Every structure is written in structure tokens, then in C-alpha cells.
């Protein structure tokens, strides 16, 4: 494990990614304690303030402290993304592995259907689902999960198939091992790595997707501190104070970059080839 972390830290992507993600996780875990102000406390006198000692990143249209809002918002933003990715992955993996396991026509049909679903842009897909269920965090979560599932299905299927081709799996079959042992003990340990990598990278997509949904008014609801919502609310005031717009945008980008880097770092570490 320590060796693993060492190797992760050796690659620049791994190192930077890990650091960023750790920082984000700190915000997620302790955001409420780190926030210097009440994220919802309004003040007519302190509207549209630039960064200052009192308000680190300035204040927004209601005179609320942007830094505090970002700190609190980290939770809703990041956790949602991670959870959605997880759900999407689990569902996708189930479909993908099943398809790979069934093989033959079933596989063909399932994968073609997955392709079909993938021909609808995931954003559009999410948009419709949310609009259909009514806009709220949970529905957005569901939407993104569903939108992600097909892609993950494709990947996990590919991985499963490649793992199945390995000689040690053949050896196990020839030995007469039980299927569940083969899947769990022989195949799985060799398939999780790529899936984890894919997941990590997808978290950043999820974050952006959520942000976009909120931006289009179909995700989190005001006065939520979700970052995408902050950006979309800020747009109307960007000519009065661009800080309101810039900070949450940066936050989103930073987290996305973090997970991207971490993902690539993990890929390098987890597959010995490179």
C-alpha cells in the first residue's frame, strides 16, 4: 500500500491530483467548520464586495460570504458527483459484466441497446430525466447516474472480456473452479483497477454535468450553495462584480482537474505496462 502511494506520488499527475482531491475532501468533511461566515446570512450593506480580510473571496448579490458558500457547497457538489458516479458504475458494471458473461446474441443485443442509449447526449438525457422528475438534487443525482451507466457498461464489459481471456482464468476453469470463485477471486481483482481509474476520471465529468444541470436551472435549487448554481446566479451580476462568477467557476475547474489528474495517476500506477 505504502509502495502504491509512493509510486502514485512519483508521477506528477498522481501527486498534484492527490493533493487537490485531498484538499477538496477536507472542504467536504470540515467545510462547515472552516466557513468563517453563515453561508446564508444576508446583508444589504455588504453586497458585491471584492476580496478582503473579512470576506476572503468577497460577497455575492445578497452580501453572503462567497468563501463560506464555496466551503459549504463543496459537500453538495462533490458528494453528489461521487455518489452519482458510483451508482452509474455499479449499474453499468452489472449490465456490462452480465452481457459479457451471457455472450452470444444476448450480449449483442444488450450492447447494441447500450449503444443506442449512448447516442443520446448524456447532458440531454439528464435534462429530460430531471425535467420529467422535477428539478431537485436527488433527481439530478438519478439523472446523472442513469446517463453514466451505459458508458460504464461498455467499459466494464470490455474489461471483463479481456480478463476472461487470461490463461489463469482458463487454468481455473480447467481446474473445475466454481464460476463465482472464478469471477470473484480470479477475474475481479484484475478488473477493478481499470474501472477505478475510469470512475475517478468520470467523477470530474459528473461534477461538470451537475454544474451544467444546475446552471440550466434543473439541478440544485437556490439558496443552495451548489457551485454550478452559484455560477448561474452570478451571471446576472457579473457586470457589477465578476468575483461572484469567477470563484465558483474556478472551484469547479479545480476539482475537475484534480480528479482528472488523480485518475491518470492511478492509471499509470495500476497498470504495470506504462
Amino acid at each position, binding site marked *: 500500500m505504502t509502495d502504491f502511494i509512493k509510486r502514485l506520488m512519483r508521477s506528477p499527475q498522481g501527486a498534484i491530483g492527490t493533493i487537490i482531491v485531498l484538499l477538496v475532501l477536507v472542504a467536504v468533511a470540515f467545510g462547515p467548520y472552516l466557513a468563517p461566515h453563515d453561508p*446564508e*446570512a*444576508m446583508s*444589504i450593506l455588504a*453586497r458585491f464586495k471584492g476580496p478582503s480580510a473579512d470576506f476572503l473571496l468577497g460577497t455575492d*448579490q*445578497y452580501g453572503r460570504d462567497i468563501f463560506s458558500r464555496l466551503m459549504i457547497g463543496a459537500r453538495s457538489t462533490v458528494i453528489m458527483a461521487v455518489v452519482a458516479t458510483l451508482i452509474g458504475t455499479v449499474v453499468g458494471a452489472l449490465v456490462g459484466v452480465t452481457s459479457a458473461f451471457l455472450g452470444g446474441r444476448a450480449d449483442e443485443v444488450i450492447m447494441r441497446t447500450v449503444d443506442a442509449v449512448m447516442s443520446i447526449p448524456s447532458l440531454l438525457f439528464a435534462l429530460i430525466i430531471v*425535467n420529467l422528475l*422535477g*428539478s*431537485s438534487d436527488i433527481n439530478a443525482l438519478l439523472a446523472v447516474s442513469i446517463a453514466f451507466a451505459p458508458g460504464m457498461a461498455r467499459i466494464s464489459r470490455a474489461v471483463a472480456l479481456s480478463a476472461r481471456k487470461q490463461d489463469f482464468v482458463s487454468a481455473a476453469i480447467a481446474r473445475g473452479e466454481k464460476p463465482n470463485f472464478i469471477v470473484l477471486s480470479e477475474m475481479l481483482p484484475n478488473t477493478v483497477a481499470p474501472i477505478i481509474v475510469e470512475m475517478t476520471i468520470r467523477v470530474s465529468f459528473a461534477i461538470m454535468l451537475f454544474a451544467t444541470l444546475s446552471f440550466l*436551472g434543473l439541478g440544485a*435549487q*437556490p*439558496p443552495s450553495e451548489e457551485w454550478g448554481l452559484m455560477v448561474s446566479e452570478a*451571471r*446576472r*451580476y*457579473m*457586470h*457589477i462584480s465578476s468575483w461572484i462568477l469567477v470563484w465558483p467557476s474556478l472551484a469547479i475547474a479545480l476539482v475537475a482537474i484534480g480528479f482528472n489528474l488523480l485518475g491518470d495517476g492511478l492509471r499509470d500506477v495500476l497498470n504495470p505496462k506504462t
Partner: protein
Amino acid sequence: MLETTRRRFLLGTAFVAASATLSLSMPAFAQAPVKGGTLRVAIDQATSVLNPLLVRVNPEYMLAELLYSGLTRLKVDMSPEADLAESWSANEELTEWTFILRKGVKFHDGSALTAADVVASYKAILNPDTASPGRKNVGPIEDVVAKDELTVVFKLSGPYADMPVATAYMNAKIVPAAIIESGLDKLSSEAVGTGPFKLVSFEPDRQVVVERNPDYYDPERPYLDKVVLNVYPDSTAESSALIAGEIDLISTLDPTEYMRLDGTDGVDLQRVASGQFCNVNMRCDVKPFDDPRVRQALALTVDREAMIQFVTEGFGTAGNDTPINNAYRFFSEQPARKPDIAKAKQLLADAGYADGIKITLVASEKPALRTQLAVALREMAKPAGFDIEVQTMPHATYLDQVWKKGNFYVGFYNMQPTEDGIFKLLYTSDAAWNETRWDNSDFDKAVNAARVTADEATRAKLYAEAQKLQYEGVPSIIPTFFDVLGAKRTWVAAYDIHPRASVFRFDHAWLTDKAPTRS
């Protein structure tokens, strides 16, 4: 007294006849209007509906006004002026109104306008199956008949003093009887009106183009060759386009954009105090708002001065929970409500909500200030024990699911031409859209009395009474009134922003020689 009333109307007629010439001497017209040119107008919402009897939102009103005419129209001071009707008069009881039409008015398809068309149009508006939003706004009409080619007579269910104003309602446009026979669907893709402009192309979500109607009844107007309505997704985009000179005029502007445009050279900012307001509607017939104390409690949490800042960026005036402000003729001042959390708490406790109330407040996304109002209210009401969850939704969804149905939501209304207009629209028990289900017989009595009275003083008293009752009953919280804001390029002349916010009168506007020449 009836003498005076009649004289007033005859005067009105005389005035109308002169209106064309008179208007020329207004200051804005110091320089004689130049004909020609294309006016590009930005609108922040698609003009989904073309049929004038069905239009619902300001951009659609704008289009309807360009293409069609009504019997009368509203001047900037909210008084009626002649449109298709040359003159009008009422019987003593104010229960029968006679409108005389102009001669030789032609529809865009060449057919001549006759009383029959007027009758058919009004019948269509009043027919429930047409589902016209204006059905209950065009006056208490019982029957409408054509006396002769050019004379229309409205028989009312009761006396009504504001009829010439009612006939100026945005949906009260005149369409050919023939088309009504053949079915109104035709009007959702083409326009056959008597308006100053004719429809050239109609792309609801992108662009609508209209051109001068050469057969318009006024040989002078309109001055513009063409008007182009460009649809923008949000007002930020609109003002960007105005700055870049891609459009000449923004009909309605957000406060934030007003501030942004302030000081941009080549741009005139327009601002007029208005009775336009947002109201927080509370269903008075279901818990918890069935108890007036709860409504008063909530009203007492609102810091109206702060609201003016949060919601209108200062471009508004404090509201006092009645829809009437000094933009109306019969405004009567009530003691301004100041935030008083302690009292609010008390009232809540008395109403049996000692440990607070948890409730969801719905706000449509358009215009954005609904949401701002909701979010601000949420914060203000917190200390008093109101735990409000704000839920925003697309406007269409709101109209479909919440408007006139919801228990607790943010409404947004234009100023109405008269006190009667707004009260009968929203607050009397028989109001067209009585969303709050507020049912106060004294209030109804006062309003109904006022509409049949011609004497100014009496009316003022009655309306003051009504306002007081609503101030106390608080069927809905009206924290602020908005000034109507707009912006135009300096080269657009003779365009004044209208407090009604849904009246535009582009037929008076013209472009100075500074204007860039466009196709």
C-alpha cells in the same frame, strides 16, 4: 352629475379626434419624424402565441399590438385614446356603451373593417372554448351587437365606468369575422389584423419580422419600414447586443442590466414608476394561511427597504401588501409595515404555530427576481419561525402546475390601468384569477360600488376602504413595486416606456439620421 359624466366622454371624443395633431406638438417630436428604417427590438421570451386573443406574456402583447388594433388603447397616463373606435359614449346608467368605428379601415387581407368583425371578435373572446386569458378583463359584457356598419353597442351586466379602458385590454383585438368562422387555428401561423404593421416572417423562438402596413388608418404612422423582434435567452444577452449595436431597443430590462448599461454612451436608459409588482400568494382557504394571523406574521417579517435592494437593486418602491401604489389614481397611504419579529412570533403563537411553520415557496425562473424575492423572504422569515424551502421551476411548468393552484408561490403582475382592473383581476372573490381564494365581502362591496360610481371623491373613498381592508387581510404579501425599466439607442426617437409594461406603441417611434442603415 350624470351630465358631467356625459360631458367628460364627449370631451374625450373631441380630444381623440385631435389626438394625431396634438401628439405632434409633444416635446419628443420637436424634430419632425423621419419615415423609414428598421427597428430591432430585443425580447427575453419566445413569442410562442401569435393569435391576439390568446396572447399571455409581454413579448406576445407587443407582437399583437404591432399587428392588430383594439377599439381603444392606453396612453402613457393610463387614460384611453381612440384606436379603431373614433369615439364612444355611454348611457346614463353606464350599462350600455356605444363605440363608433373609423371609416375605411382595412384588414391586412384587404377586407374592410365592420362592426360585425368587432362583434365576432368580442364574442370569440367571451366564448370559454376560445380560452382567451382576457375573457374576464374586457368588462362585464352581457351582449355586444352591431347597430350598423360602424356602430357597436356593448350591453353590460351592470354599470361600469371604465369600459373604454377595458376595451384597451391586450387581448381585446379585432380580427375578421370571416376567420373566426373558419376557425381561429389559422391565426397561430398568420396574422390578419388592422394594426400598423403586417407580418413578414414568424419564427417564435428566434425572430419575428413585421413591415409597415401601407393601408394603416393613420396616413402618417407608422414611421418605421420594419420592426424586427429578436428573441434572447436572457437579459444579459439582450444588453450585450444593445451595447454592440446589434439591436436598438430593449422593451423590458432587469435592474442589474440597467445598472450595467448606465453610462454606456449611445444608450438612453428609460425608467418609469409603475404599479408592477411581485406578490407572495397565500391560499387563504387552506392551512396554515387560512388564519389571517399567520399571513400578518409573515408580512411582519419582511424588511421592505431591504427587499427593494435585493429584488430591484433599488429600482422600486416599498410595497404595503396592497396592489395599489401612487402610480394609480386612487392610491391611499397606509401605515408602512416595518419588520417586527417579536410581534410576528406572537401572532404565530396565537395562531397555534408556536414552534414555527415548515413550508415550500414556489418561484418561477422568469423573471429571475421572483427567485430573488423568495430567497430573500426565506432569510427574513427564518427568525420568526418560518422554515421556508424555495423551489424554482421553469416558467411553463409553473404556469401548468402552480399558478392559480399553488398554496404558496411568488406571482408577478403588470400594472393594470385602473384600480378596478387589478382588484377584479386578483383579489375580489369573483376575480378573474383569485389565486389566494381571499373572500372578503366588505372588500368586494367597496370595489363593486366603486366601479359603478362616476364621482371621483366617492370612488377615492371606496378604493381607500378597499386598500385598507386588503392591508389588514393580507391575502398576499406585496413587498415592493418595480419601476418599469428599458433601454434604447439614442437614435430611436419618440419611444416612451409605458408603466403598463405591456403597451409599447411602436407606431409612434422613428429613427433619427444617426441610426445605422440596415437591410
